[in-house]
């Protein structure tokens, strides 16, 4: 009994669950079956893929469009919506 009393009570418990880690530490890229590959010679840098990427994994540095494979789940929206068909979905080996 005295041991139980020594345990922290409800007043010590945080009032709500607080997620404290950044989701970016969790790499969702390993969900992928097909990966998008950008043909840089066809790419017109219209950034349509960037708009429609649900995972924010299209990276634009001001010059080229790249895919951040750490997070890309391989949904294929970018390849479907690319107006010049510069993105192809390639099966992961």
């Amino acid at each position, binding site marked *: 009994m005295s041991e139980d009393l020594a345990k922290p009570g409800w007043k010590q418990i945080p009032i709500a669950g607080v997620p404290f880690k950044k989701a970016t530490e969790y790499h969702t890229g390993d969900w992928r079956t097909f990966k998008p590959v950008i043909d840089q010679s066809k790419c017109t840098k219209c950034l349509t893929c960037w708009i*429609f990427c649900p995972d924010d994994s299209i990276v634009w540095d001001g010059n080229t469009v790249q895919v951040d494979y750490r997070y890309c789940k391989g949904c294929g929206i970018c390849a479907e919506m690319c107006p010049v068909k510069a993105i192809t979905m390639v099966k992961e080996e």
Partner: protein
Amino acid sequence: MSWINLRELAKKRSLFTSGHRLCAGCAAGIIGRLVMHSVPDPKHVVVVHATGCWEVAGTIFPYTAWAVPWIHNAFENAAATASGVELAFKALKDKGVVKKVPDIIVFGGDGGTVDIGLQSLSGAIERGHNFLYVLYDNNAYMNTGIQRSGATPRYAWTTTSQVGKVIPGKLEARKPIANIIAAHGNAYVATASPAYWRDLMEKARKGIEYKGPAFIHAISPCCRGWRFPPNMTIRVAKLAVETCAFPLWEYDPETREYKLSPPSLAIAKNPKLKKPIEEYLKLQGRFAHLFKPEKREDLIARIQEDVDKEWNQLLELCGIT
């Protein structure tokens, strides 16, 4: 020039970050990014979440995909929580603790908005709190496994409106939630589709800047629940607008006028552009029973009739006849 300059905007990382665990191809992630990129001041924003897929997938303990202050309370009280947040910041501002009241954005799914959270949302709008409520409408309770909701369209298959010999999916029509909110009279209301991203971002900015309650009803195609391949999300969101199953419009509380947005206005001006509803239905597996084993022309005609009726009503509201 518009504030939307893609090449500049794309250099910024989203406030809803990568690493969230929404399904591949989920439209909620796209809507979230577009809305968060429309925030005028990223340092002064608070996000409130109703329970739903997005709340769960965005913040799986101990991870959070939100780079802004974020609060989740329960299914039924997202709007009430937002009211509290607004009042708390107002009190802190009066005491001189904070300099300004942040923009408050609420995200809720159709279950948490159309069914469970409707009373708290209606109350918060009536009280005139200053917040933007974004409803991402995936047409069912997708988080718990595709159960029918008040937003599920007629004849859609869900796990609680099974398709069989007796019934062809959900028998009832969906609730016109955006019209219900517009009927309050004091809220800025808009419908949006992620396929028309510029339109969605402009509406989000307008909603945030409006001094009072704002509500955006965004269609959020769900590849798992609607049964289509994940790469077709945006195509489906686009067809919903092109077939007038989900027309885009705005309601201005100051003039009390409804206004069609450009993609739908083009259809109103040239009715030839309006695609038959069949094109929208046949992409989705939840409507597969309308096409297989034999084509149910009667049921498709009924859905088309619903769509036409709602569309004509909307045209009347917008003063186009």
